[in-house]
């Protein structure tokens, strides 16, 4: 028990207990986003904004040209983001990601992919509510904290907008809201969970691509699902963020993907930065000692020093 406490990386059976909650705390809750049934309707994005009163995009609306994605990425004002990836799939070849880049018409490659079938991947991204959450770890004010549901939430009355969580997140989730100054991200609808309700996005999701529930149950369900898809010949199905052995100790919000994570804009094998923090502190301490010693050395007796000079 004690050896498991206050760990910064690796598997952690109960991050909630680790965050000081009594044993009576509710089970860890999370999302399983099954992208194999996502229809890219973006209901999750809107339901999230309606519930959490997240501001709409400010300034000029612009077409991104990234298939039907005009949001781009998760941000302080987009706590859900649906990615759209257009591919041609030819048997026995890895999928070819199709153009729509800002670098001109992909006419050249098109003939290459002509005989393939079009595949359109869609995936609703969200904060991962990591077992080892770097944003939470580095937050200097305690604004980011772990809730009794094991989720990671920003406390808006505390955040002072120091911005440390922003570069700490290995998934590029959390961000500072322009004009507000504070950091925002998915709360897994902490307030709704408190009322025994499911998060707005999961409730809205028409095809149940976004599933909400106790993480343990979701993991079992996901394992079954991926097995089932493999049996159906969908070999490319894989789980992302489900493994408690991974670099962040497993995600509270994990995914079933149909291609490599980076194709969806996800890091392939993220590691919580604080895993290396003890080592960092040691290096910093050594270097600090180096400073002290260097200063001290610099004050060694004048004469002696000058004598030693070549």
């Amino acid at each position, binding site marked *: 028990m004690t050896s498991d406490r206050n760990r910064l990386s690796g598997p952690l059976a109960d991050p909630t207990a680790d965050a000081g909650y009594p044993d009576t705390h509710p089970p860890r809750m999370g999302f399983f986003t099954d992208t194999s049934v996502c229809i890219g309707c973006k209901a999750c994005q809107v339901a999230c904004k*309606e519930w959490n009163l997240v501001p709409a995009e400010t300034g000029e609306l612009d077409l991104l040209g990234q298939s039907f994605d005009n949001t781009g990425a998760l941000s302080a004002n987009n706590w859900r983001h649906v990615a759209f990836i257009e591919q041609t799939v030819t048997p026995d070849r890895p999928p070819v990601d199709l153009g729509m880049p800002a670098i001109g018409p992909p006419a050249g490659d098109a003939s290459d992919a002509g005989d393939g079938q079009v595949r359109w991947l869609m995936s609703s991204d969200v904060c991962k509510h990591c077992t080892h959450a770097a944003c939470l770890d580095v937050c200097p004010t305690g604004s980011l904290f772990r809730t009794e549901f094991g989720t990671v939430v920003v*406390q808006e009355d505390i955040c002072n907008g120091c911005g440390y969580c922003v570069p700490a997140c290995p998934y590029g989730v959390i961000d500072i809201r322009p004009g507000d100054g504070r950091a925002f991200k998915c709360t897994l609808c902490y307030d709704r969970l408190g009322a025994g309700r499911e998060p707005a996005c999961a409730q809205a999701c028409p095809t149940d691509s976004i599933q909400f529930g106790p993480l343990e149950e979701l993991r079992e369900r996901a394992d079954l699902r991926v097995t089932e898809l493999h049996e159906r010949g969908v070999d490319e199905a894989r789980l992302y963020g489900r493994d408690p052995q991974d670099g962040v100790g497993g995600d509270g919000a994990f995914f079933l993907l149909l291609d490599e994570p980076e194709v969806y804009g996800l890091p392939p094998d993220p590691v919580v930065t604080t895993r290396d923090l003890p080592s960092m502190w040691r290096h910093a301490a050594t270097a600090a000692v180096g400073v002290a010693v260097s200063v001290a050395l610099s004050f060694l007796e004048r004469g002696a020093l000058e004598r030693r000079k070549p």
Partner: protein
Amino acid sequence: MGLWQWIDGWPVYRQLTGDDALGRGSAARSRGTERLSARTERADRVVRSVCPYCAVGCGQKVYVKDEKVIQIEGDPDSPISRGRLCPKGAASKQLVTGPGRISAVLHRPPHGTGWERIPLDRAMDMIADRVVATRRQTWQDTHHGVPVRRTLGIASLGGATLDNEENYLMKKLYTALGAIQIENQARI
């Protein structure tokens, strides 16, 4: 006592005395967090409704607080939608409370270059006058000798978000007026 409360409320103190030494969970909870609750829990009433966009007919629950709509979401009881909504349905609250909704009657006189605000009852009276006048002016008792009892001077085109009861009154009134060019999005 005030000091003690302050110290007790200081997360560092809770870090030192509680189970959350690193200040990553229970010790870091704020007053705002302790007060947090879902606004649907504070609603004065919940009203059953139906999504106004497409014809799937998803159930909606409309949460009202202080005579304002504070949330609209899917009705999990519905056998049609099971509580789910599409982006449009999920944006219903913005549809009914969002920017751009006009709440005053606007009038543009013939050849006018801008809107003028007029009272609703005056507008109703003016519209009734125009209906009566146009009907009188364009009335046909017969058409090529065959009785028709109608006017082709007045037409109507309705959207398909009209309630059945509204459509019913429209058809009834227009028919009694003798107006036949009564159409709906359903034709389009």
